[in-house]
């Protein structure tokens, strides 16, 4: 027996020492014959293998025997398998790998779109830029207005894109349409966006040619994506010259709840400033906000967001003017809420959907009469996405409803009217990677609109070509429909929707932290509302064409980040009360913006400046024969800001707009009186706005107790 074990052991020992060692070696290349360094080459199911060197060669010893598969894997290439019989002579293998388009970075269609996200480095903007841009005053659209394609129009505050009016832009939060996203707009006073920029991690601003998923917007869409939940409980406190706020976020294992409350009151500030108006009640209000997130299943996420605000203001004009109320008192209540789910159903299928709703009530009391406008909006949407290696399909359906009730009263007379509009739409879009350097997108959107009962079919196309390592060309085309504004539908509910077509050509050059974009476009408008005859009718039309330039550089000077944007806009339209085609009053033909940020490390302070030049805006002087032939003088502003990091939890922020106090005239109003023609310049309420705030973030230190261990 003993001898048997011994002989067995001996046999095994002998076998293991005489096991045949084979050498497996060779070269890995791509299909063009270029060597591939850094590829992993190994025998499947074994530890035996090696990585290719800088010349694409590899070699390793193996004692495996039999029929084995040699696997070669390299990021960006199709994994290749080759059968080998071992032991054997495999010392001169030559294997070429095919590029795997699905693993390569996608060629993104950049025509019309500016993206701000933290996820990719090669973007024009970062979400942080929204709050650090001088002159933006923490307002999302304030920062967007420093990008090409937009009008600065400091008397408006909303987005005015490529000759389009403010109603031609639509805002989305996590895919849901937001109705009344701006505070109530008053004549000659700018409004602000209602949403806190810190809510969002990703922002895409598209000035045209956007995807078939977006409708009911003639000129632009602003797509906001809310932040993911934080890892640790966080409390934030802000103390500002115009108010105060507090927020808390409580995360749990797979979800979180965030609450925020803000109070703003400009009374103390207005009291110190000399303004155009006599403020009896400077703008003031409460704002409350709730975000709830919960992961569901393996790959799903529910996000719910709600906001309520209540604002008041009252003023008297210091210099009364005929047709303009001497005294105005406004009360606004606003609620917005949305809830939605998004998630992966399988490796290739994704589903997302949700509902949003809004309620907006404006109560105006003026010496010319009272107006009460109630506006409700609803949006429901469901989208399915199918992602294959080279092809993505997105299809969905949505329903938008809008109800406006307006009550007017003057002395003892009162009238009330109501209008409802609905849009039902279905859309489908395919994005296809033709090759490693070409991507194409084709989409179709069908919509049915009430009360006019009209139908519309909108094709959307996009193409991007990676022309060189750092440069890319892209083009986009699309047609767009939008219902007439509620103010017109109230008077005439059969108004057909507006139509626009965009043609965009874009060149982009991007190398590490430098980005150049050149874009040119043509846009046509049809069926715009005209009010010449007293009743609104769809006989207006127009066009816009222009060229834009954007240059951003974060590299040349250490700690300096700046961008320059230029827009040339040539646009005319017949709409509203325009007797002939003319350029609207909010359009400056030339706009140049320079935004700079410089971080001074030793004092941990970032200084920011924004310099903007806008050529004169059109206005109509009724005394002259020609329509809209007046031009205001150009507007030139310099804004400054500074953010000082007191600690990693406390930031002191200060800013001033229009530092030099440049006299800005946005236009003129005229009135024919028995004493002759009166004229009044429209100016900002105050030449400058000065702001300071202290922002404190308190994070519960999960490691605090651990400190006591030593």
């Amino acid at each position: 027996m003993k001898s048997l074990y011994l002989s067995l052991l001996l046999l095994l020992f002998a076998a293991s020492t005489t096991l045949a060692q084979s050498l497996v070696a060779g070269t890995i290349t791509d299909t063009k014959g270029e060597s591939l360094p850094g590829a992993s080459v190994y025998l499947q199911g074994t530890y035996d293998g090696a990585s290719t060197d800088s010349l694409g060669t590899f070699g390793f010893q193996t004692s495996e025997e039999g029929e084995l598969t040699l696997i070669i894997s390299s990021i960006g290439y199709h994994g290749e398998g080759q059968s080998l019989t071992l032991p054997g002579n495999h010392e001169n293998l030559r294997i070429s790998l095919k590029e795997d388009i699905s693993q390569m970075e996608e060629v993104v269609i950049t025509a019309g779109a500016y993206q701000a996200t933290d996820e990719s480095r090669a973007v024009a903007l970062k979400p942080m830029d929204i709050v650090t841009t001088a002159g933006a005053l923490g307002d999302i659209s304030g920062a967007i207005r420093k990008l090409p394609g937009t009008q600065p129009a400091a008397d408006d505050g909303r987005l005015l894109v490529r000759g389009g009016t403010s109603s031609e832009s639509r805002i989305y939060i996590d895919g849901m349409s937001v109705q009344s996203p701006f505070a109530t707009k008053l004549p000659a006073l700018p409004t602000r966006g209602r949403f806190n920029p810190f809510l969002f991690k990703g922002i895409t601003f598209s000035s045209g040619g956007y995807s078939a998923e977006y409708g009911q917007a003639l000129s632009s869409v602003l797509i906001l994506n809310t932040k993911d939940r934080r890892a640790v409980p966080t409390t934030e406190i802000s103390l500002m010259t115009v108010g105060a706020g507090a927020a808390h976020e409580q995360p749990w294992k797979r979800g979180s709840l965030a609450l925020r409350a803000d109070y703003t009151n400009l009374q103390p500030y207005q009291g110190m400033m000399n303004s155009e108006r006599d403020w009896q009640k400077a703008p003031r209000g409460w704002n409350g906000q709730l975000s709830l997130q919960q992961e569901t299943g393996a790959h799903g996420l529910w996000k719910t967001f709600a906001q309520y605000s209540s604002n008041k203001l009252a003023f008297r004009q210091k210099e009364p003017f005929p047709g303009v109320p001497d005294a105005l008192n406004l009360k606004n209540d606003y609620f917005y809420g949305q809830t939605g789910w998004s998630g992966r159903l399988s490796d290739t299928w994704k589903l997302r959907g949700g509902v949003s709703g809004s309620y907006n009530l404006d109560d105006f009391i003026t010496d010319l009469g009272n107006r009460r406008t109630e506006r409700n909006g609803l949006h429901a949407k469901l989208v399915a996405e199918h992602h294959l290696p080279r092809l993505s399909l997105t299809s969905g359906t949505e329903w938008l409803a809008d109800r406006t009730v307006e009550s007017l009263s003057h002395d003892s007379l009162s009238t009330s009217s109501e209008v409802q509009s609905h849009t039902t739409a279905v859309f489908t879009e395919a994005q296809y990677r033709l090759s490693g350097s070409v991507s194409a997108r084709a989409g179709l959107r069908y919509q049915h609109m009430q009360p006019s009962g009209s139908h519309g079919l909108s094709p959307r196309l996009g193409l991007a070509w990676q022309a060189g390592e750092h440069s890319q060309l892209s083009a986009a085309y699309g047609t767009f429909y939008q219902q007439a504004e509620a103010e017109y539908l109230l008077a005439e509910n059969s108004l057909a929707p507006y139509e626009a077509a965009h043609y965009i050509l874009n060149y982009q050059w991007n190398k590490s932290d430098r980005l150049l974009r050149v874009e040119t476009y043509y846009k046509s408008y049809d069926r715009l509302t005209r009010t010449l005859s007293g009743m609104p009718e769809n006989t207006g039309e127009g066009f816009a064409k222009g060229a834009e330039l954007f240059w951003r550089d974060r590299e040349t000077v250490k700690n300096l980040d700046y961008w320059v944007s230029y827009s040339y806009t040539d646009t005319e339209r017949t709409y509203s009360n325009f007797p002939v085609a003319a350029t609207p009053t909010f359009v400056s033909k030339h706009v140049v913006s320079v935004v700079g940020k410089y971080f001074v490390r030793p004092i941990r302070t970032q200084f920011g400046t924004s310099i903007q030049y806008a050529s004169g805006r059109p206005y109509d002087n009724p005394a002259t024969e020609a329509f809209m032939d007046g031009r205001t003088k150009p507007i030139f502003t310099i804004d400054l800001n500074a953010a000082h990091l007191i600690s990693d939890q406390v930031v002191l922020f200060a800013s001033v707009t229009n530092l030099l106090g440049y006299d800005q005239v946005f236009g003129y109003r005229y009135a024919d009186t028995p004493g002759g023609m009166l004229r009044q310049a429209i100016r900002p309420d105050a030449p400058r706005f000065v702001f300071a705030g202290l922002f404190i973030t308190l994070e519960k230190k999960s490691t605090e107790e651990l400190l006591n261990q030593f």
Partner: protein
Amino acid sequence: MKTILTTLLAILITGMTYAGNYEVAMQKALTQLNEADSPEAFTSTAQAFDRIGKVEEGEWLPQYYAAFCYIRAAFAEGDVAIREKHLNQAMVHVEAGLENEDNSELQTLLGYAKMGQITVDPMTRGPQLTPEVMQALGKAIQMNPENPRAYMVMGQMKLGTARFFGKGEEEACGYITRALELFGTEEVPEGSMQPAWGQHYTTQLAGTCTEILAEKGQ
């Protein structure tokens, strides 16, 4: 009887040689890691661990070392775009390791990899990722209060923040001192595959600490 014995023996021996192979392959890759001195060398070592990990699906160590090699490659890399790719690879292996076993060493690497991601774009990623780094490292210390590497990475992270704000160095250096003490008492048996890196770098960090605190004391 004979056949049963023979079979048993054969199973035993093949089993032994198989287990031996894992150890041999790991030791070979660990030797390669000790000799690595460039981003390319670190990535090819990462691939060696990845090959072992593909065979030994239940082991956390191959995943751990693959992740560690990618992190080293990332920190040795000057081009931020490539650094980002290495860190993404590191995260894949940390997560694969955590699926096998949730332990202090893997949590340390998770914090380390996220710290690397902050360096790619500190201004925008810092606010979001800093708490996540702290959470992973806090968990690492909690899971094994004797893990010197958890204190080292925590110290390194805190030192970076402290130097930027010009305060809080004492706390950061407390972690580094503690790491150094723990390295002194850490027993690593000859030929062990358990993580044992970090002492050299901690000594360097401790030197920086001595300088900073001396300067502050003046």
